């Protein structure tokens, strides 16, 4: 089920549910106790809004396809650079990341030739911002995977709910309907978690977050050094030494304990022989 179908099914689902709730069931529009609720005829604007929404989705999809097709034609025949730039503008991936040009500039700064005393802090900050931008981009891609999962779950749920309605099976309570949604969504999410797309995008987020953390530490280390404060790396060295020393002490204590035991055992043997 693609996004359009999923939203169409959701629209239908909400229209049915809204109608079912607001229509005085089997009692006629004028039945006592329901007078305050609008008659079914008043739901026309709601249904029209749903229709507009689905039409807007269809129009958007169509527009996107038309643009893509026309851009391909333009790019091939006239200016390939302009075509490529336009294609990137209409690429939804760019909407999710949206930072590639910025990243490229920062990359040039951070990875450029090194000068002994110039731009040391600027280069580090550039690397930090690059890492930040990369993380945002990775998060965007991961969110796209999750959005796709949500769309599938919502579409599946709406389709199943609609099918139940057609069969005349209804949810006795709102909680039951919620439970159906939870189970449907859980099933889809568990499938998604095992997918290559999910695992790859999540791994990219983890890597990007790690790179950002290391870039932050590099800036902090540079500043610490500048102001004569101990850096993370120096503290790590101390902690490594401390751990090794503790290990040695433990080992010596163990040897001592074993030697004492051996001596005791030896003394006991001598006593028994003596």
């Amino acid at each position, binding site marked *: 089920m693609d996004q359009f179908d999923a939203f169409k099914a959701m629209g239908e689902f909400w229209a049915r549910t809204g109608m*079912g709730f607001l229509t005085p069931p089997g009692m006629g529009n004028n039945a006592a106790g329901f007078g305050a609720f609008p008659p079914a005829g008043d739901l026309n604007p709601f249904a029209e809004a749903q229709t507009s929404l689905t039409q807007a989705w269809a129009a958007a999809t169509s527009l996107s396809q038309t643009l893509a097709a026309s851009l391909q034609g333009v790019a091939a025949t006239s200016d390939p650079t302009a075509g490529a730039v336009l294609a990137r503008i209409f690429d939804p991936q760019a909407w999710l990341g949206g930072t590639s040009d910025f990243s490229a500039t920062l990359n040039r700064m951070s990875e450029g030739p090194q000068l002994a005393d110039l731009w040391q802090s600027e280069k580090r900050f550039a690397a930090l911002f690059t890492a930040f931008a990369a993380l945002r981009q990775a998060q965007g891609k991961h969110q796209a995977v999750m959005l796709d999962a949500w769309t599938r779950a919502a579409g599946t749920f709406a389709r199943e709910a609609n099918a139940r309605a057609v069969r005349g099976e209804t949810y006795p309570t709102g909680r039951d309907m919620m439970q159906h949604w939870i189970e449907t969504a859980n099933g889809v999410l568990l499938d998604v978690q095992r997918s290559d797309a999910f695992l790859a995008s999540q791994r990219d987020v*983890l890597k990007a977050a790690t790179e950002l953390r290391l870039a932050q530490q590099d800036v902090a280390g540079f500043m610490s050094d500048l102001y004569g404060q101990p850096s993370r790396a120096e503290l790590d060295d101390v902690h490594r030494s401390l751990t090794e020393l503790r290990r040695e002490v433990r080992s010596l204590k*163990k040897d001592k304990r074993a030697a004492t035991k051996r001596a005791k055992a030896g003394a006991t043997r001598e006593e028994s022989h003596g």
Partner: protein
Amino acid sequence: MAETTDSGHGLPAATPLDLTPAEMMAEVGALGRKMAEGAKLFASVRDEDVRIATTPKDLVWSQDKVSLYRYRPLAESRGLPPVLIVYGLIGRYTMADLQEDRSLVRNLLNLGLDLYVVDWGNPGRADRFVTIDDYVDGYLAECVAFINDTTNREKVNLLGICEGGVFTTCYAALYPETVNAMVLTITPVDFHADTVENRKGHGFINIWVRSLSAEDIDQLIAAQGSLPGEFMGSVFSMMTPMRTMTKYNLDLLEALDDRKKFLNFLRMEKWISDRPDHPGEAAKQWLKDLYQDNKLVKSDFELGGRKVELKNITCPVLNVFAQDDHIIPPATSQALRGKIGTEDYTELGLPGGHVGVFVGGKAQKLLGSGIADWIAARG
């Protein structure tokens, strides 16, 4: 419930949610009452109402951040070798003593066992270079030596839980002469055996760790200095995605009209939130050597310069697994069968999930008596 008439919008007559406005209002009203009662309950609960791990115990030994406790007896001793409970570094031993009526510790004490528990403390960034070698060959070996010296015995019984079970497995292979018997609970041995059953929603950590490269893990530890407890918490949450989303609304709401249920919920939350950081180098071994390279089951895992040969485990082994464990799928535990150097190997599959074995009404009672009877037969 009445039928809905066709409204002229081209939709079939039936609706997914078959409620009248009156019924809908009644449901909303009931929800409102529940929330109001819940708010009152929340306001009345104090921290002391949700204390966990309350079984009395005394600190008997400590080194660096590691502490060894001995529980005070609750029944006449059966004269069996002491039992040392070893939890892992992911989570804390308090799970085994969550509350008075859901406590493996109390169940075992009531059955006359002499119980010790090791608490690994709260490793911080300064413990980045502490390894599993340090935990098994160092601290655990020291705890066993202390217990044997104090009780004037040559051997202890080990009770390993989850990652702690891996520690005791390694220890029993390296120092078989000091172990009388070993109980493993929800312990992974073959870290790739999640593929045996391949149950949906089970073994996600195995899949997730295998999706990373060794360099990803090295970088993560270099950046963090540890495997943060909070980070592991989020991985666990991912394993039950919708449960995580509904936990603090729908699930909590279900518990709000029952004070006992609500306090149980809060105690569990208290345990979950107490998730220590896993020391960096130990985390690398855990994730790379075990989860990725699966070295334990191949007897290829090295600690203290020695190979951990499973065949060297000669003490009797009781291997307890949870039949519906989504974190440690049963096959990853059951893989121990036939790999060790003893014929005295018993499996006990209990109903419930990873944590349910310890806190589920039926399972935790079966667990306590099952362990005590098995140890008594090997005293």
